[in-house]
């Protein structure tokens, strides 16, 4: 408990009372967002996302595996995040802590529950062989708002990804020997092809402090925030996922206002995503 966090808090409190933020942004304004897809050659898909100084790299790897018994004809997604000590003086090496797990699970649900990936099209042999998609999210530079940066990086990497038919052809040929049915899949997919994706929801994160609610919190804003909420909305403005965090509370009206602001920001971010990945 040094004195400085208190001074920082007082400063940010006073600013929001005047309708201002430390970096000059409007309450409902994001920092600059850049998306660079395809930066990792070993990955099936990848993207670096910067929101202000926050920097996240997501990579997609794919492998052939067995389906879950209860979804025999569906591909499988696995999402992991790493808050590596590279990115912040406060991150430590070791197994994922609750913060990391929450991040990975929120990103995962944003993709899984809104069915961004058509998992039904990632089946090679029904009941026997399917594609597993590994989404790995590396936090490189942590300056606030990981939820949005991580979600966006994961989406951009997915749109950048190609199913690695060519690279895994030896294994696919082996599978064909064992399961002649695989011939159909291989005839349909003679070479690498993009993942079957739908128009994705976009996550927007807000924090509340001193009765103000601001979007895309910087690290300083996040440090003093009382409550946090992430809302993912789709192109129609429907809600596809929400997650409230931290120790404070929201009123019902605050949440409704936040949803509306999410739709507006989400629409802008969706444009940036589409331009960057060229769809």
């Amino acid at each position, binding site marked *: *408990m040094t004195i400085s966090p208190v001074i920082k808090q007082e400063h940010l409190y006073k600013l929001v009372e005047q309708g201002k933020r430390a970096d000059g942004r409007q309450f409902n304004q994001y920092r600059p967002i850049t998306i660079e897809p395809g930066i990792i050659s070993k990955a099936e898909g990848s993207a670096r996302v910067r929101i202000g100084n926050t920097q996240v790299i997501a990579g997609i790897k794919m492998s052939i595996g067995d389906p879950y018994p209860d979804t025999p004809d569906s591909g499988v997604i696995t999402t992991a995040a790493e808050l590596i000590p590279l990115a912040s003086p406060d991150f430590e090496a070791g197994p*994922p802590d*609750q*913060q990391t*797990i*929450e991040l*990975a*699970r929120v990103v995962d*649900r944003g993709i899984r*529950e*809104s*069915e961004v990936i058509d998992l039904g099209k990632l089946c090679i042999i029904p009941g026997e062989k399917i594609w597993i998609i590994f989404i790995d999210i590396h936090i490189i530079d942590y300056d606030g708002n990981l939820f949005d940066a991580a979600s966006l990086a994961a989406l951009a990497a997915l749109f950048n990804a190609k199913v690695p038919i060519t690279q895994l052809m030896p294994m696919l040929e082996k599978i064909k020997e064992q399961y002649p049915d695989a011939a159909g899949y291989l005839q349909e997919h003679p070479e690498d092809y993009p993942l079957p994706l*739908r128009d994705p929801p976009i996550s927007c994160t807000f924090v509340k402090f001193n009765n103000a609610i601001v979007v895309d919190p910087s690290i300083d804003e996040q440090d003093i925030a009382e409550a946090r*909420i992430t809302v993912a909305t*789709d192109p129609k*403005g*429907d*809600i*596809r*996922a*929400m*997650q*409230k*965090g*931290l*120790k*404070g*509370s*929201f*009123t*019902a009206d605050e*949440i*409704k206002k936040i*949803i*509306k602001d999410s739709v507006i920001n989400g629409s802008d971010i969706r444009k940036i995503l589409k331009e960057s990945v060229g769809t």
Partner: protein
Amino acid sequence: MKSDKKLIDENGKRLDGRGPDQLRNIKIEAGVLHRADGSCYLEWGGNKVIAAVYGPREAIPKHTQNPLKAIVKARYNMAAFSVDDRKRPGPDRRSQEISKVTSEALEKIVLTDQFPRAAIDVNIEVLDAEAGTRCAGLTAAGVALADAGIPMRDIPVACAAGKIGAENNDGMFSGGFVVLDLGKEEDNFGNADLPIAIAPRTNDIILLQMDGHLTFDEFEHALDLAMKGCQEISKLQKEALLRRYKSDVEVEE
């Protein structure tokens, strides 16, 4: 997990006979454990949970202490035998996420300033699981905290609303019913789930998660239903605490 299973009929009757804004049966008993400082046993439909509170006591290890206030550590755990396929003992990623959001929700309610350097440990044990265990656990935790005499702004309470109905295979929305407190089949095959926890006196929302697909209007409706559910359950919490208090008085007499 979408399906064509019909979860609600034309009269708004659900699979288990409930109406859209009706809760499952809830039974709450406070003070069920001998060793814990406060405890609660709660049945909610097919769910059975126990919550136990220890503290305020010195937080250990020392570096976890906050010199200005108590920390509230909730631990949500499922018994290996509480689910269809045996769960491996120990925390999985889902349990850890629920522990985190539950801890955060409770910390808002407890008057932590009164106990610098202390820990208040809230243990939530799911014995039988059937949709909605995080709401059942948090609701039981609220009663156990009160039973332990922990000073709080309010007694926290949780409930979910959701949407059931049809959705096309391509994920496009085509109607659906917003209902209170999803049951098991509804949870597996429904289109959205919105668990919340509130401080019932102010309606402040201290926990909120949402999966699925809701229009803005549906969200408003679901949030409203869930809040009304919370208020109803809040009454059951207070009745349980009153019964507990009365039985204590009787014993003393």
